[in-house]
């Protein structure tokens, strides 16, 4: 029995590959986030591990104009939901939150950018870690006057979109990929491109034969 005539597979394949190429192009035209400013904690150490409800404010921070995210040096395997507020006095300048379930030694929380750099602000963050502990990384208190709950200063970085797109950074990224590996050299990127190209060809070959 013949299969009923459906839309031509090659048209769908071509369209979806074109869509994929477009998505890659659009993604690479975006800029990676860069650190606009940080509270300059040198040689950060984990100074406290907390469980349960936690909240702290760090004063004397500077929120740069255009910062789209705040990166806090908090360490967790299954991190809790975190809320961040940036206050100037009692005035809320910006805020953001990150859902639970993150894993890393730092967590990035998107915030609404402000138009002007604000000095002497307080960065307040709060979370409830019922079972999973959260490590606070930064500087022991003593070197600085402000602190998270009086025991240390959490490292804070303010991120903003970089000025250069991924496209313009492509050559730099490619040169970075040649180091820190076995047989370092320029062969890596062309080899990867050729291998991925071969994979795409295999997928196309198979896709075009699904109707047969």
């Amino acid at each position: 029995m013949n299969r009923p005539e459906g839309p031509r597979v090659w048209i769908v394949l071509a369209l979806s590959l074109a869509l994929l190429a477009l998505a890659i192009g659009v993604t690479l035209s975006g800029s990676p986030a860069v650190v606009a400013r940080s509270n300059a904690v040198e040689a950060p150490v984990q100074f406290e591990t907390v469980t349960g409800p936690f909240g702290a404010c760090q004063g004397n921070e500077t929120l740069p104009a255009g910062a789209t995210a705040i990166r806090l040096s908090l360490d967790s395997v299954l991190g809790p939901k975190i809320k961040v507020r940036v206050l100037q006095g009692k005035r809320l300048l910006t805020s953001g939150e990150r859902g639970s379930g993150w894993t890393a030694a730092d967590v990035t929380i998107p915030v609404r950018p402000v138009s002007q750099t604000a000095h002497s602000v307080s960065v307040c963050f709060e979370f409830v870690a019922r079972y999973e502990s959260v490590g606070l990384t930064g500087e022991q208190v003593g070197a600085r006057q402000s602190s998270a709950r009086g025991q240390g200063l959490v490292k804070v970085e303010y991120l903003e979109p970089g000025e250069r797109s991924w496209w313009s950074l492509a050559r730099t990224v490619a040169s970075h990929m040649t180091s820190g590996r076995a047989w370092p050299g320029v062969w890596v990127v062309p080899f990867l491109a050729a291998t991925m190209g071969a994979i795409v060809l295999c997928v196309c070959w198979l896709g075009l034969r699904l109707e047969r």
Partner: protein
Amino acid sequence: MSATGARRLRGVFGCVPKRAWLCALVACLNATCWSLITPPFQVPDEPDHYAYVEQLALTGKPPSSSAITTYSSDEALALQGLGTYRVRLQPEHPAVFSQAQQEGLEADLASAQTTPVRATGAAGVATGEPPLYYALELIPYELGAGGTVLDRLALMRLMSALMAGLTALFVFLFLRESLPGVSWAWSVGAMAIALTPMLGFMSGGVTPEAMLYAVSAAAFFCVARAFRRGLTPRRVAMIVTVIALGMLTKLNFVGLLPGLAFGVVVLVKRRHGGARVAACRALAVAAAAMLALALAALATGAVRHSQLGSPESSFQNVTGHGSLFGRVDYIWQFFLPRLPGMPNDFPGIFTSRQIWFNGLVGLYGWLDTTFPNWVYVAALIPAGALALLAIRALFAGRAALRSRAGELLTYVLMAAGLLILVGSASYTGFPQIAGAYAESRYLLPLLALMGGAVALAARGAGRRWGPTVGVAILVLFLAHDIFSQLQVIARYYG
């Protein structure tokens, strides 16, 4: 090899369709790409797995200590030169790429080459694992003996990449046996698995999980074949061999055993008269052979008792603490939404989605490389569409499902056994830590079933739209793979 042997071998490989080989090739190539993209020792526990192989190469014996900071001098120097602990878990720190860093690394590696390497007997968390994967990794290790630690690691990663190919091959063969009738859907399911970024990432590193995925897929294939074609002494031998390989690869394979045992019982009950006697006899012989091999391995020291049940190995110490109900509650919530009346072991976390779904969508490196949050939300749309199509296919084939209840129950038990094992291991740390082992890589021994779900989704689109939807699914998985690789490149080299 005799002409008969060669003919037989050609017969065995000849009956594997070209498309299955293509899926295997793609999985291999994909894992190779991942092995180049992921910086050395940035696959979970890779320093420990490398240390295990080095220990085997230097002494001929498996490691005996789980001390995690005691690596041999050459590995320790490489880890230092690469800044592994600075990069690990800290996404703001890229991999080595400056000229000064590269020169420092080369100096470290050169110094390591001139220093005699002494075995430390330690392999961290890998210490309690069985030796088969590590023994196979001795081949590339020895091939790279004249090179640096990084040269050896790169060659060893290629061995893992080959295992990704085997995984995709067995997934294809599993689909051919379990979903007969619509042959194009096998290609869709197996190719989707070949392009799964988490398979590429894990199989692009030195870890026994790469082999575990292949052996687990082989186990599903063997059971499906026996259900479709009947249990014969030869198929019994195949199943038992795969079980032995799995047990010698990684102890997580234990999770599949209850389901496999159930499947064999169902298969034996289906046989009658002489065929049943022959199957039972084969089972008895195979069981005796396995027991004898296990005893011989223990007696000769090839496998130590510690590797069959050491407290160091996190996945073995699953008896743990707490009440049975507490354990059941925890394991349930580890994977599924909490039911009314259960205490909340994961407050504020929807585990099914935030741990397992998001993990499969993208969580690379030492769990420190993620997509932006919106990607995980957007991924719900294609995943939901695939799930609906798969359910549609199951509904359409419900009559066939009833007649294959025993086979389906076998797959369900295999999956449930693995999930219970992972959940039990996680429970050992609770309540100090909720969510230990909450990593989607532990689900990948079920890749055959995931391939089945994808193939069903393609079939669920109907006879007219099926191949078209199949192509769209393939490009979707290809896109997932490419964007995952770009994310990892951005994290380490951006």
